[in-house]
């Protein structure tokens, strides 16, 4: 394959986003298949130390420019367009996050190539790139070839594990220069979430409790698990009715409609009114003492067991893993 495989690293507020490592892991595989180097591109301002973390790539192209300090997609796209013209990569993998997707689409528009979207897997064979893309809200998967050069490809979160993309190897950093015009769009500030009210529809990780949790005191087990995942606790209606959780935490027909990445259910039977609100979750894990509970027809993974035992065990394991 002519040209290297690139991944666009995502960094903001002084941190490399985890999805960057997922892309590194995927990019590593693809570069290996194509027999070309894997390069990571990091854009930023005074962020060179972040480039050190990208050792899984053969080289890291680091562009430092004051205009790249803030998340302004137009600047990032312009910088990438310059680098692409100079260096002619075969493919540019962009994280499909709210932050980076705009960079990808603006870049594609500038280069007048398509933006291959919703990609969950990518392979190189011969000179071709073949992508598996998730369409229609997950109802279909399409195998797609992208012949544009470069192919700009949006990679869904979770394509590979973060761990696969981490490396202790010292990154080989190449400093590159970009010149940027004043952007049209002006970034003003970050707005942090108000901690007072949790919007469960915005959470990637939810731990849902049902009557199987038995007492209000046991809610703590769910809170701990949610905290270890970096998510929030929500519940079935009877739990809300009992006043254990506020109305804004109710999932279901008469509550919120949620689509988190992970929905862990502790002691919820799976009544249709509850399922209506959570069935589109990307990964559903149900813990229930009743092997015949209808929720096991909805969940992706099931555990027949006591939620009061499984929840704390899981919290411990996750904490241990996250270090």
């Amino acid at each position: 394959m002519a040209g290297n495989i690139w991944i666009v690293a995502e960094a903001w507020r002084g941190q490399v986003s985890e999805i960057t490592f997922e892309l590194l892991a995927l990019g590593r595989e693809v570069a290996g298949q194509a027999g070309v180097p894997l390069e990571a591109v990091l854009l930023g301002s005074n962020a060179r130390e972040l480039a050190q973390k990208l050792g899984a790539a053969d080289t890291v192209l680091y562009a430092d420019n004051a205009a790249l300090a803030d998340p302004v997609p137009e600047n990032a796209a312009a910088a990438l367009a310059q680098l692409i013209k100079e260096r002619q990569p075969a493919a540019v993998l962009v994280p499909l996050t709210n932050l980076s997707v705009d960079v990808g689409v603006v870049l594609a528009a500038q280069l007048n190539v398509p933006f291959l979207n919703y990609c969950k897997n990518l392979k190189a064979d011969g000179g071709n790139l073949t992508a598996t893309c998730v369409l229609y809200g997950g109802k279909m998967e399409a195998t797609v070839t992208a012949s544009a050069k470069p192919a700009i490809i949006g990679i869904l979160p979770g394509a590979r594990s973060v761990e696969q993309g981490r490396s202790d190897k010292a990154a080989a950093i190449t400093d590159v220069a970009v010149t940027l015009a004043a952007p049209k769009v002006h970034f003003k500030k970050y707005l942090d979430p108000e901690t007072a009210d949790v919007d469960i529809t915005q959470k990637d990780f939810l731990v849902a409790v049902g009557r199987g949790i038995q007492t209000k005191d046991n809610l703590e087990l769910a809170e701990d698990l949610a905290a270890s995942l970096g998510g929030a606790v929500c519940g079935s209606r009877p739990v809300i009715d009992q006043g254990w959780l506020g109305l804004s935490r109710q999932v279901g027909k008469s509550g919120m409609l949620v689509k988190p990445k992970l929905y862990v259910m502790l002691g919820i039977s799976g009544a249709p009114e509850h399922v209506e609100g959570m069935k589109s979750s990307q990964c559903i894990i149900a813990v229930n003492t009743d092997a015949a509970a209808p929720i096991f027809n909805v969940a992706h993974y099931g555990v027949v067991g006591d939620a009061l035992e499984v929840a704390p065990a899981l919290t411990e394991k996750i904490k241990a893993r996250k270090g």
Partner: protein
Amino acid sequence: MNILVLMKVVPDVVEELEVGSDGKSLDTSFLRTIINERDDHALEQALLLKDKHGGKVTLLTLDAPDIDDVLFTALAKGTDRAVKICGVESVQSTQTAVKLFGDVIAKTPDLLPVDLILTGVSAIDDLDGLMAAPIAHQLGWPYTGVVTHVTLADKTATVIKEFAGGVRGEYDVPTPAVLGIQAAEKPPRYVPVAKVRAAMKSQTIETVDAPAVEAATTVEVQQMAKPQVTGHAEMLEGSAEDVAGKICELLAKRGLL
């Protein structure tokens, strides 16, 4: 303040989707289409801005089955003009949709000027791109996507864009601009059927012919298939310790830890 909203339809996933006989597209015999949810939010955002600042909202769509109902509903909600692009094939790639919209916006005399063009930031069938950015590029206008809040002042739209984990960013976007809407500030409003019927009697839908655009795309679908669904959870067995370990493994594998 005038706003143009771009809307398209997508397959309705409430109905079971099937693969067509060519093995690489949707079977259209039972296919039902529905308005792209985020485009509906874009329309709502436009109407909210109109409620606040006055001005006109124009809705531009590609023709599709039952699209007139959608347009009359929009008119009943307070949209001022509804225009549909006729003579298009029902299944479009996003690239083709961009070309059609771009061409019609540029060539139809009275669609511009507007202060904003709003459209949904993405759609479930956007395989080869998202609409808003390339349209902005064609017009040479600024673009911002994943927008959840818009305030309009003279020559500037102040928008809030969603990042991750509840963190958002505030931007000033000089108008005219194209915005990709993630969600309107309020969910799309309901309009009683009686009002839609009244709109059908008193208002009209304008049509423009689809310009000839080449459907060239460098993204080619080789195969389409339904992902495997088991219908029953994969059961994890063992002690609480064991299953906790197994869950941890599979979360890590899915990139969730």
